[in-house]
């Protein structure tokens, strides 16, 4: 007979093994991507495959910078970063108004989040025509406006939940103590939902960062984002795996860094959001 303690040990061990196996399965494609980006063309196509490059080799990245492909990563950073900042700012103010002053009545928040359910493909061509008319095609401003518009409902919905969780008395106390509403938002609401702000900002950023459809339709060369640029490396005759992998690494790094730095807030923000409807 096994003792309770032995059983618990075995159970923990099994869980650990399962966790390691699952992690390996998920991490392997990332590992492979990183490794390819450092390989020479011979190593990439060698059979049996090489698990790691003979020596770290940055030529694939150098080419991206030389050919101007890397600029599209910068474009992505600009449009995703700017639209995130604008959407967070506007969305939080809207959310505050809906949460605290019942702006738009009971159901405005539901109506706003329903805007997020629109499939992008349904609106992309009307938007394209509108952008042509407004001369916004292939401009930073155009893409930023679009991503902001698409992210606002999400930001409003999420931030409304976080703001509703802040005890009203905290804000009232600040009002009595000499703050204006704007100061209350700055000094009480922002610090109180810091975790929610970061979590929402990351999701907002990731949406803009990952977007392909809008960028494909609304950009040509000046404002092309990296997601669109990568598709240029898939050719009818051959695929430029070295460039694809190096570009993918460049495209993954900002998200990696952001999540790594904000993991603490991210986990707290997501779990905070999870307990509310």
């Amino acid at each position, binding site marked *: 007979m096994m003792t309770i303690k032995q059983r618990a040990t075995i159970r923990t061990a099994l869980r650990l093994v399962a966790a390691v196996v699952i992690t390996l399965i998920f991490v392997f494609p990332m590992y492979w991507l990183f490794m390819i980006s450092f390989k020479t063309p011979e190593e990439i196509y060698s059979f049996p495959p090489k698990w790691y490059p003979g020596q770290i080799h940055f030529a694939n990245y150098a080419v991206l910078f030389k050919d101007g492909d890397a600029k599209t990563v910068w474009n992505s950073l600009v449009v995703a970063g700017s639209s995130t900042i604008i959407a967070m700012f506007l969305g939080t103010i809207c959310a505050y108004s809906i949460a605290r002053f019942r702006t738009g009545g009971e159901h405005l928040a539901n109506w706003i989040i329903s805007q997020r359910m629109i499939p992008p493909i349904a609106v992309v061509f009307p938007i394209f025509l509108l952008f042509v008319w407004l001369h916004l095609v292939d401009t930073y401003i155009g893409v930023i406006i679009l991503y902001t518009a698409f992210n606002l409902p999400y930001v409003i919905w999420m931030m409304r939940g976080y703001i509703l969780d802040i005890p009203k008395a905290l804000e009232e106390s600040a*009002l*009595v*103590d*000499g703050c204006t509403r704007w100061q209350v938002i700055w*000094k009480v609401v922002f*610090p*109180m939902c810091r975790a929610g702000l970061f979590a929402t900002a990351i999701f907002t950023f990731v949406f803009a960062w990952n977007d392909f459809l809008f960028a494909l339709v609304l950009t040509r060369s000046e404002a092309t984002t990296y997601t669109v640029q990568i598709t240029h490396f898939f050719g009818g005759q051959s695929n430029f795996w070295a460039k694809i992998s190096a570009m993918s690494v460049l495209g993954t790094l900002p998200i990696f860094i952001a999540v790594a730095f904000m993991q603490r807030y991210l986990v707290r923000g997501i779990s905070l959001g999870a307990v509310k409807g």
Partner: protein
Amino acid sequence: MADLKITALHKYYGGVHAVRGINLEIPAGEFTVLVGQSGCGKSTLLRTIAGLEELDKGSIEIGGEVVHHLPPRDRDIAMVFQNYALYPYMKVFDNIAFGLRSRKTPKAEIGPKVDRAAGMLGIHHLLDRYPRQLSGGQLQRVAIGRAIVRNARLYLFDEPLSNLDAQLRDEMRGEIKRLHQELGKTMIYVTHDQIEAMTMADRIVLMRDGVIEQAGAPLDLFERPATKYVAGFLGSPSMNFVEARLVAHGGGLGTLLDDGTALPLPPSRSEKLSGRIDQSVILGLRPEHMNRAHPGESRSGLAHYAATIELLQPTGSRTYATFKLGGTDVVAELQPHDVTQINQKIELSIDMNRAVLVDPSTEKVL
């Protein structure tokens, strides 16, 4: 110093008329307690004074200045909230200093002011901690510190002790009263707890359904309630009410209960009530005005009654004994050893000098 003047104040919440035409003047330096049951409008009135709710009609003046159109920050008030309302991301020092900083107090003055407030409340050792590291009583002290650190015209307390346990509540009651004596500021304190109201107030404003039922010094309200509601609200255990009829009794007046018991009224009261003979009244008797009768005791206005005790609730210093009087359960406050077991018979003397007689149709005290 400021006095507060509220004139014909009305406040609606949707269709609910929460405050119905309140008129109230509070002299400078007074400690006024707004008391009443949940939903009577006392918190709404306080929040309207603070500017956290807008009034629908009427006016509010502080120190002669009309303030009801001003935002809260321009009314120069300080407020203590029920749930402390401390900022969890700030240390105690910063919480107390928050109001000073918001009002652009010179940096050099903030430290000494916070120190002084912390000293008054005995929370000096907590200044470097975060709210999450404090107990309920300490949190409440910090919340009070945040209010008193400012030299406001008016101090508002919204049920500040209701989240504390009984012992702490007793302690903090004394502390807030002491603070009022030291600071001499005008304070308005909202509570549903009549003991807080009685022990702390210079003046009690008892509210019911959005209107002031009665206002006055605590003992005035206790001894001379204007209505049945006031009589029943103040006092613990609360006043007993028994249905009765006014009858002629031994040359004077008496109250005749449903079970045939007649309790004579003292001559001093008979005169005023002589016009009401044979009318129904509600007889109000406080538990402490029914005591064990002592042999040979005879004083004007003392009525004797042989009670059979049905329930005993000893508290140590007093014992609450429940018995039937005129078919109604009533409670008397006896000495601990006056009664020792249930079903015991005991001769009680009821002090009819202190009895309250209520007109059942208007519920006004006669």
